């Protein structure tokens, strides 16, 4: 027997307000989730030939559907999964950095960590011609080294502020020029490869490329999610967080390593998809509102951005644009806006 709602004592204003805000955050996150699913399904259906939901579903279940099995199962599915997982990885890693450093500019794609992964991957693929697993490995090492270098250059008396952003932007520019140099100098360079490593692209996605990322995401995302409460407390400053029982250094180290590794795997698979890590957190914050962890909403927003941008790039224009070109066009104005605002506000968030 359940008590009728009317006879329950009214919850206190404190409880009611907290419940209401939490429910509204959950609703917004659920909405993002539904949109991601819809775009994922759509990217399996549309293309040169349209396949309905029924055919797509049967392919996903592993049944043999003439025509669709190849187009959907071999071409579209890995591409859509890559978009989904790379977008989610970039989104969650981006918001982790932004939350930890309390600055929307402190995203791994702005401060050079993606560029580090990208430079290593492009050297591995274009120059050394190593296989995918090794490329991922090189990207991770390079991304971690880049993060360490930025940290050491920016570290001064335990304070990581605007210095880190500026140093990171400089390092990103240097590493981007390494990528461009390698591509231009490589004997067998072609436009597809170049675009993938310059702006990020889902073209040519195969299970061989996608699987390492999927495995990495399955391991690393739970690691980040387990730290989400501690990360939220770090927003109050190290002193407060520590007084509230957060092991500050340990939390920071854990989330840095996990987020950098996610960025590296995503970059090794799809290239440095421009601005997704940077945009996902702020958009997610707008959508779900303040007061809760942004990790899941930002992951969903990242996936949404990549899937939507890839669909748009493939089908909306006369020419096919790689996903990074579209996200780049979206992200650049926001970057300019933030830089202008930072300059005015003297660097605070």
């Amino acid at each position, binding site marked *: 027997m359940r008590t009728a709602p009317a006879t329950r004592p009214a919850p206190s204003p*404190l409880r009611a307000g907290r419940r209401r805000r939490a429910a509204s955050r959950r609703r917004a996150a659920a909405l993002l989730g539904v949109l991601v699913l819809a775009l994922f399904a759509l990217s399996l259906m549309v293309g040169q030939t349209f396949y309905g939901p029924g055919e797509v579903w049967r392919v996903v279940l592993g049944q043999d559907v003439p025509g669709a099995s190849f187009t959907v199962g071999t071409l579209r599915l890995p591409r859509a999964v890559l978009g989904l997982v790379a977008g989610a990885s970039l989104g969650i890693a981006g918001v982790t950095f932004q939350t930890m450093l309390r600055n929307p500019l402190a995203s791994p794609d702005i401060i050079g960590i993606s560029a580090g992964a990208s430079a290593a991957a492009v050297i591995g693929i274009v120059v050394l011609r190593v296989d995918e697993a090794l490329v991922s490995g090189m990207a991770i090492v390079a991304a971690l080294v880049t993060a360490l270098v930025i940290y050491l250059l920016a570290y001064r008396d335990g304070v990581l502020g605007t210095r880190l952003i500026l140093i990171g932007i400089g390092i990103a520019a240097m590493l981007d020029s390494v990528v461009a140099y390698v591509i231009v100098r490589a004997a067998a360079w072609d436009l597809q490869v170049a675009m993938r490593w310059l702006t990020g692209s889902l073209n040519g996605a195969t299970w061989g490329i996608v699987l390492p990322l999927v495995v990495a995401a399955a391991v690393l995302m739970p690691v980040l999610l387990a730290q989400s409460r501690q990360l939220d407390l770090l927003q*109050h400053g190290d*002193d407060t967080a520590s*007084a*509230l*029982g957060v092991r500050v250094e340990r939390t920071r180290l854990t989330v840095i390593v996990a987020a950098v590794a996610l960025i590296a795997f995503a970059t090794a698979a799809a290239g440095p998809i421009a601005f997704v890590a940077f945009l996902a957190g702020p958009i997610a914050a707008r959508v779900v509102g*303040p*007061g809760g962890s942004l990790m899941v909403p930002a992951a969903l927003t990242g996936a949404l951005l990549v899937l939507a941008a890839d669909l748009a790039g493939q089908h909306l224009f006369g020419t096919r644009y790689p996903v990074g070109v579209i996200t780049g066009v979206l992200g650049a104005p926001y970057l300019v806006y933030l830089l202008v605002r930072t300059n005015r506000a003297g660097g605070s968030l």
Partner: protein
Amino acid sequence: MTDSHTLVAEHVSLGYGDRTVVDGLDLTVPPGRITTIVGANACGKSTLLRALSRLLAPSQGHVLLDGKAVHTQPTKAVARTMGLLPQSPLAPEGIAVADLVARGRSPHQRMLSRWAVADEQAVEEALELTGTTDLVDRSVDELSGGQRQRVWIAMALAQQTDILLLDEPTTFLDICHQIEVLDLLTDLNRTRGTTIVMVLHDLNLAARYADHLVAMCGGQLLAGGTPEEVLTAETVERVFGMRSEVVADPVSGKPMVLPIGRHHSAQPVGHA
């Protein structure tokens, strides 16, 4: 109940990088009493509180909580015994007062634990004590300085620790809110026996509200004792490099410092 917790700094040296800020300081915090720390700017007061609250590891010496080095105890266990309100805490953009104060319950929660009745009661009580119950649904950004400070204190109170460290909890407040906050902390001390250690800017308020007054200078502990013992013209001169006269505060009977500047002295300077 709470008098049992002891907090002692044993010959601690503290610094940032190579720079030593506090050098060989000894301090015993009297359990169940109010201790106030005074000293000139940059003499290391906040640094000392950071070390007491375990954020900063001493390069020499120990901070002992209940006789055990605080840096070897689990952060969460320490956070259930000792709370800290830093000098300038940060709030994420747009967070509601209720959600902020609720974060004070963090050390009492496990990773996936649900919000319990005890948590709810602690938050309600903290809001009530600080007079912030009406603000619960407001965003912290849009509060006045005085309201915001009370909300931060509510967060520290929700933590329900037996020891509470506060770094200049009254700095941004006008005089009536300063008194309100100090009275609130005194209530807390009197009714629950909470041990309070706070840095205060205002010498006279520090003397009035302290059971135990500590004067710091250049990273050293210059004097510690009852306000009457510590707050003398001589100590004020050594700590702040300022001449003054100390009289009995007609309201509380505690010592009160009257600074002697170069102007406005009714008697010839040098009389003190």
